[in-house]
């Protein structure tokens, strides 16, 4: 009897439990090794020394993306992971469906662009600034402005029901895009803002660290992600985090128990927006050029897909999701290059583009449906949220 229960418990131990059972030094050591690995990811020498079979000629490596620069892909993954972490606060913790999350990214990117570019109209036409500001100074401003826009958007809308909130936030992102596209006054419409500033720093030999090479940007974004993870973890385990979970599970009950729901929902919105703005400012620091075309709705949906595929309410899930939505299509493309996946097929005289990058939204759309049906808690779920969903499923479903 007793042995049986013990056995059963052992069998139930999954990877996470085993990790938790390790002594603390071992856990920290494992984490450090893992983080060092992450920093090494974009260097090709790293893969070659791992002893992977490298076919000569095609240059194909198992994890490496040949279709595009590996460090570039990783940097893109990085700022999407940041976005996913931000949306995870709004959607995963507080349970507010924000469909226009990329709008905050736009706010952050434009702030940095306007303040750091020598060609920004603030300098050339209005003389509000003497000279462009350094990138580092503008980042806190970008974060603050994104936070402010989150509060401004949240103030009127957070009193609405969940599904209305979704539509209103969608409208907000669209308004930002249209405003950026149409008005010439400051954002310069489709022509955009060129020569945006880069982050500071030089190598010992005097070359700028942050220039055209992607690798330093990846290291920067990785460092920022690690910092943000600590921040969010502490928030989630604090009074604020508990209030969010209470709101997500039952808003009325939370209000009755004395949680000021509106205030905490607004906080979730503001913090999510701030992380979105941070991501936007990092991106602008690399991209060098900002215009309205970058901020289409598809990006918002991609971030949403990242959070939900990974598992809403779980930091690991957001990271996994953000990584998957960017890396997978790129990787598939290089696999396609090596193994001869066709980029085009012809059916009845019509050419259809079937490359993974072109079809990725079809794939993610289908994945969203399948995940919602069979694993609504996501690939790397938050335990409490998974339990909530399971509880609901057990409630008597009305007979069809």
């Amino acid at each position, binding site marked *: 009897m007793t042995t049986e229960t013990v056995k059963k418990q052992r069998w139930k131990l999954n990877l996470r439990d085993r990790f938790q059972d390790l002594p603390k030094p071992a856990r920290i050591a494992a984490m450090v090794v893992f983080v060092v690995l992450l920093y090494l990811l974009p260097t090709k020498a790293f893969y070659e020394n791992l002893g992977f079979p490298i076919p000569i000629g095609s240059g194909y490596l198992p994890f490496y993306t040949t279709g595009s620069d590996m460090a570039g892909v990783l940097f893109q993954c990085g700022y999407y992971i940041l976005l996913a972490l931000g949306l995870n606060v709004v959607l995963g913790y507080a349970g507010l469906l924000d469909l226009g999350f990329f709008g905050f990214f736009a706010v952050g990117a434009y702030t940095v662009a306007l303040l750091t570019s020598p060609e920004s109209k603030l300098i050339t036409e209005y003389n509000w600034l003497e000279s462009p500001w350094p990138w580092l100074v503008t980042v806190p401003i970008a974060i603050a402005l994104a936070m402010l826009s989150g509060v401004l958007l949240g103030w009127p809308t957070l009193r609405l029901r969940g*599904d209305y909130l979704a539509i*209103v936030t969608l409208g907000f992102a669209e308004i930002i895009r249209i405003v950026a596209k*149409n008005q010439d006054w400051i954002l310069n419409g489709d022509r955009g803002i060129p020569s945006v500033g880069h982050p500071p720093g030089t190598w010992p030999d005097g070359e700028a660290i942050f220039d055209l090479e992607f690798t330093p940007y990846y290291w920067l974004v990785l460092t920022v992600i690690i910092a943000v993870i600590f921040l969010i973890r502490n928030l989630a385990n604090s009074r604020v985090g508990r209030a969010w979970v209470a709101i997500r599970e039952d808003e009325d009950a939370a209000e009755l128990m004395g949680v000021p729901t509106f205030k905490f929902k607004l906080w979730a919105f503001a913090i999510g927006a701030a992380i979105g703005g941070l991501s936007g400012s990092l991106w602008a620091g690399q991209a060098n050029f900002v215009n309205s075309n970058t901020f289409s709705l598809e990006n918002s949906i991609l971030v949403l897909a990242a959070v939900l595929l990974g598992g809403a309410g779980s930091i690991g899930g957001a990271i996994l999701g953000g990584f998957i939505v960017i890396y997978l299509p790129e990787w598939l493309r290089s696999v396609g290059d090596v193994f001869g996946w066709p980029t085009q097929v012809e059916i009845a005289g019509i050419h259809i583009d079937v490359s993974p990058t072109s079809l990725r939204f079809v794939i993610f759309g289908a994945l*969203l449906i399948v995940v919602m049906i069979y694993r609504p808690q996501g690939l790397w779920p938050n335990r409490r949220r998974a339990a909530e969903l399971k509880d*609901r499923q057990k409630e008597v479903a009305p007979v*069809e």
Partner: protein
Amino acid sequence: MNFDDLIQGFPDLTTTGLAQGSIYALVALGYTLVYGVLRLINFAHSEVFMFGTFAALWTWGLMGYDSNSTRPDLGTALLLILVSLVVASLFSGGVAMVVEAVAYRPLRKRNAPPLVFLISAIGASFVLAELMGAFTERRQQGIPGLLPGEPLFSAGGWTVYPLQLMTFVVALAVMFGLDWFVSKTRFGRGIRAVAQDADTAALMGVNKGRVIALVFLLGGLLAGVAAVFYSMKQGNTRFNVGFLIGLKAFSAAVLGGIGNLRGALLGGLLLGLVESYGAALFGSNWTNVIAFVVLLVLLMFRPTGLLGESLGRARA
């Protein structure tokens, strides 16, 4: 702000606004029907509409009319429109039912929370739009001009074009047909019963699954009708036309009171007019912003819309 344009162009702006509003109203009815019964924003409805525009385009193509052909005579044009109305609405209705069966029905069986429904809907919407995008190489496709481009009549500064009149009349007719269907027929009674209280309706012997499928079919049929008129007005279509129309039609539904059939008509026409006047006032670049601002302001002050929500309680 350009008040001169508004005052001088007032009659023209009104007629274009009403014609555009009729299209919004037809699509809005689809949102309202589904919302009334399931309390769910059918995000994929915009793509159902988009499929309708392509169905119309292909129908005309098969009958020998593409964007390069010359304008047919009136009799042929009417025949073409009639055929495309039938084909497009059936096609859209079919797509809507497939979406329901694939993306929503499994979730209903699992008693999923509303958020999960919404996300599944977004997924369905993306699959539909991007499939069409891949199939049409993401290119804009021209649509033949069918009805004569000259004004039908003009009196005292009011000019009415055949297409505008036809859009408005057909939309009204379809709307009254739907109203009759929902309030008078056996199926309509089933819809209202499920909208009021799904479980009790099921206990009283209403087949809930069939009612829901029917509601999706109805919404799809209306979207198909709207799609035909939209394509003729716009002169082209693309795989992503659904998004904006869908957002605006949804705004229209909320404006009139989502779940309320007459509200959808009122909201659609109103939104069309506001947009048309607003475009004259602020410049046509800002048309799309106006719709969202109207929606935002309205939700702040009257979240249940002008006529109030509920498909079950209202007689229609």
